[in-house]
């Protein structure tokens, strides 16, 4: 197995606060790694450092063995690293289909071929397939802003997969999603992982979701890595129970 993502000694400080304080881990191809920890422990900051949204104070990120620290999010995305955000991030005025086409269009050709090529960048079929896969069929032409919260969350996740990414970082995909839809989402993610060999890192507070979906779970507390192991190991770890699960 090869490591798709290697994170070594990432640090990020905001003024005097060490939001992320020397975190290292690897993610193997095809793995679903859960990332849990109390609010404010630095999970999202770690994501932002990995993805180039924030410049880490120190440390290095490698994707497929290649150093990517300092790359812009758009460049990283075109290398096959995709993400979703904690808060909803769809384009409300564009239709569901347009949102998906937008999410995929920069992954092919160049600026000129996009300007002079077809207006859908040849992605309508792919987008519709994704719409079907995430069970949004009846909503394809609706403006994304008019969808329910859960539906937007599904769309948000679907958008992350449009470019055919190798690695997807999901920031609280289950937050605010009702139980039925949550089941759908989990099943969809697992299917993409199985069929496309896509690798995931998932931040989530919903323990049931994390423990049933992830192959490994990593626990953070106060900017540091607290524990790492299979869901069962993590659940049994006294330090984790102390910091997070105990209450």
């Amino acid at each position, binding site marked *: 197995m090869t490591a798709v993502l290697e994170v070594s000694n990432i640090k990020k400080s905001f003024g005097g606060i060490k939001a992320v304080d020397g975190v290292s881990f690897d993610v193997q191809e095809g793995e679903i790694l859960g990332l849990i920890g109390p609010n404010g422990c630095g999970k999202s900051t770690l994501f932002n450092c990995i*993805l180039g*949204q924030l410049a880490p104070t120190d440390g290095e990120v490698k994707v497929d063995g290649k150093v990517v620290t300092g790359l*812009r*999010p*758009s460049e990283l*995305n*075109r290398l096959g690293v*995709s*993400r979703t*955000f904690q808060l909803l*991030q*769809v*384009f*409300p*005025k*564009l239709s569901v289909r*347009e949102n998906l*086409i*937008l*999410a995929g*269009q*920069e*992954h092919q050709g160049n*600026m000129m071929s*996009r*300007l*002079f*090529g077809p*207006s859908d*960048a040849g992605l309508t079929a792919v987008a519709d397939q994704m719409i079907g896969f995430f069970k949004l069929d009846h909503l394809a032409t609706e403006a994304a802003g008019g969808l329910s919260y859960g539906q937007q969350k599904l769309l948000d996740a679907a*958008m992350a997969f*449009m*470019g055919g990414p190798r690695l997807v970082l999901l920031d609280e995909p289950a937050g605010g999603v009702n139980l039925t839809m949550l089941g759908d989402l989990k099943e969809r993610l697992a299917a993409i992982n199985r069929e496309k060999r896509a690798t995931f890192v998932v931040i989530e507070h919903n323990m049931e979701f994390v423990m049933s979906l992830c192959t490994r779970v990593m626990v953070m507390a106060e900017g540091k890595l607290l524990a790492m192991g299979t869901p069962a190991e993590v659940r049994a770890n006294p330090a984790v129970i102390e910091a997070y699960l105990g209450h």
Partner: protein
Amino acid sequence: MTATGKYLRIVLGIAVIAALIVVPMNFNRYGLYILSQWAVMTIAAMGLNLTLGYAGQISLAQGAFVGIGAYAAAIMTTQGMPLIAALAVAIVLCFAIGWILGYPALRVQHHYLAFVTLAFSTLAFLVFRNEDWLTKGIYGISNIPRPNVMGFATNRPLPFYYFCLGSLGIVSLAMWWLIRSPWGRAFVALRENPVRALSLGIDTRRYTLMAFAIGSALGGVAGTLYAPLTQYIDPVPFNLSLSLDLLMMVIVGGSGFFFGPFLGAMIAVLLPEWLRFTQGYYLMLYAVAVMLLLIYSPTGILGILDRYLAERRTKVASALRAVAKSRLETAP
């Protein structure tokens, strides 16, 4: 329902175009001048609508680009060069300067960006006024010739109006195609959520610069028509108030709507003329009308229409759902 809607739109479009061609035939010189001005300002406003309405980048410099285009046309055509050459120069020049002016937008946004572009607007005005060797300063450039288009002289007002209208047609088609291309989608993404756009592989930096450059180039196109329209230019029409007028056209018409600039330019150019019978009060009435409009609908006139259509769509959809539900309930 959508099919009839489509036919209705096509019929309406053809009717408007036919009216724009036929009705002005018996307009007097002044009427044609005003209508030509509408066409020219619509082109400039379309450029700003791309930068501001679609890509979400405020600019108070569009008037300066109209000025650059107008001076390029005036200087070159009075030297005997054809207008088409001036057009090419204006497009390249405004595209390049617009691109450079886009760089501040990568660092600052909103009113900070407005101030940066405002400073550029002032700078351009100072160049028009002070660089006598090039622009003849406050004396202006007179006797600007009107072009021959495919063998037809456009010296008389009606042919020149058709020339402006034709140019507007070409620019409109190009813009329609641009905003429907993946670029148009990327511009909207830039406006609605640049952070998410970046995470989807969209090179927001390059698209921001493009939005500025293309929008500015259209300002230049409008300028190259403006010079032969007035046949005399001096720096005054290209001061900050033109940029503000163009901004108002975009916002009043409906920023981010394709037809917004057409409507906005119509209001800005024609309404003062229609209100002229009120004599000294027309500017005040005009100002009040604009204020009331923006309080009622911050998204401009087309925003009202858009809201109405959206509400109707929702009503239709919920009615259809209700019907489907009652069928389900009454089914044996």
